[in-house]
């Protein structure tokens, strides 16, 4: 009888599966990616490598010496146990952070405009007492521009009423506001000395948000050619909340990671973070197989660093408030070994 190996589910719980069951999950995860995202399946060798990683009983697995990658961790300066600056100093000194990120607690673009000088001052001062490159991070979070939180009509309520034209118009209005705010934010952070801007969870509000972020990236990079822009996504494909928005002649709604990267590179971003959402009802082995199959096409066209998002609920890391380390390290090793990523 096959021994049962402790492994994780997408919700973080332990499951005891046989090697055969893990293999079957990997195959099913790949098949689901092929069906859903129209990508090529992973090879037999790649699936076998995933099996070796996920069937290992080791508490911790790692990449080979020499294969280390850069980690771009968001929110390192969000105020946990000390001031935001001290948090980033801790991250740098104690946790070996390759890069740092100052961000507001709300982490949303719209809220920054009213506190911009304070944020820029914090960044300015933090840059004087740290060494690692530092970016300022926010989520575009376009939904905050809609009523009741913002000035624009709420397209989420207009759509179910059948008011398609009104919903589109409203989301376009919000997107233009977000572009303006993002550029103003970048202006301030550049003056403060920032190395880069991070647009995290891009596309959470669908294609209008993705459009706004691409447009803002284009403007920022043209104004400040030596300022980096990291563009990380919110989901594995772009939701068509508008449906007809395009960038560089390509419709944004429905884009999967490879198509996303094409327009992100066109906009001039310096780093791109694809996302594959975790299915909490499936094993992490299932999830990683699916995730890698979906992201793999990106690596064929990547001209900028690809930092796949592997964190709570994405990239086969469990959707749990404190993601288990055994699951996180397996995801990292699998991504590095098979995708040859530039970072996570």
């Amino acid at each position, binding site marked *: 009888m096959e021994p049962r190996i402790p492994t994780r589910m997408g919700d973080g719980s332990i499951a005891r599966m046989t090697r055969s069951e893990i293999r079957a999950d990997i195959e099913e995860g790949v098949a689901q990616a092929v069906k859903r995202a129209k990508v090529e399946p992973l090879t037999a060798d790649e699936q076998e490598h995933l099996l070796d990683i996920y069937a290992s009983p080791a508490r911790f697995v790692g990449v080979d*010496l*020499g294969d*280390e*990658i*850069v*980690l*771009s961790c968001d929110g390192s300066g969000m105020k946990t146990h000390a001031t935001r600056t001290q948090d980033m100093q801790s991250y*740098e*000194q104690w*946790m*070996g*952070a*390759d*890069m740092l990120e100052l961000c507001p607690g709300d982490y949303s673009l719209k809220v920054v405009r009213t506190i911009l000088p304070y944020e820029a001052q914090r960044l*300015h001062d933090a*840059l*004087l*007492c*740290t*060494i*690692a*490159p*530092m*970016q300022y991070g926010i989520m575009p979070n376009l939904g905050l521009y809609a009523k009741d939180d913002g000035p624009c009509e709420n397209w989420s309520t207009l759509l179910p009423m059948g008011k398609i034209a009104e919903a589109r118009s409203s989301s376009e209005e919000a997107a233009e506001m977000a572009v303006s705010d993002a550029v103003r934010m970048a202006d301030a952070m*550049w*003056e*403060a*000395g*920032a*190395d*880069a801007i991070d647009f995290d969870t891009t596309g959470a509000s669908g294609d209008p948000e993705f459009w706004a972020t691409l447009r803002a990236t284009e403007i920022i990079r043209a104004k400040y050619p*030596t*300022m*980096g822009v*990291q563009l990380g996504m919110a989901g594995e494909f772009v939701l068509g909340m508008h449906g007809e928005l395009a960038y560089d002649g390509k419709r944004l709604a429905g884009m999967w990671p490879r198509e996303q990267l094409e327009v992100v590179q066109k906009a001039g*971003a*310096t*780093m791109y973070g694809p996302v594959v959402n975790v299915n909490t009802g499936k094993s992490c082995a299932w999830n990683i197989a699916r995730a890698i199959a979906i992201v793999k096409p990106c690596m064929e066209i*990547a*001209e*900028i*660093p690809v930092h796949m998002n592997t964190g709570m609920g994405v990239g086969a890391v469990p959707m749990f408030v404190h993601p288990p380390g055994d699951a996180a390290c397996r995801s990292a090793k699998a991504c590095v070994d098979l995708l040859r*990523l*530039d*970072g996570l």
Partner: protein
Amino acid sequence: MGGIRAGGDLVARMQMTRGMRLKEAKQYVADKLGVTPFDLSDVAVMTELRDAHGFGRIHSYAISHPWQANLIEAKFNIARVLDVPINCVEKFKERTGLTEPAPR
């Protein structure tokens, strides 16, 4: 890559601000420092290198190096050795009169 324990921050800077792929970024930094890409993740190699170039380091109460460059000073050295402009370094120079302010 271990951040300032090794050479992770240096490689990250090339990715973040120059859009260099990992292999390219590692090779660029390694060439500037006269080491191999493999060495960049090795704390044993990089601690000595960071000391030599004044790139800043992990420090603790028991192992303080007050005579070495650190923090913004370290970034001056990183910018010079890696031949890459660092925004906060340029702003520091402008605001202390070391250079003329850039046109706004």
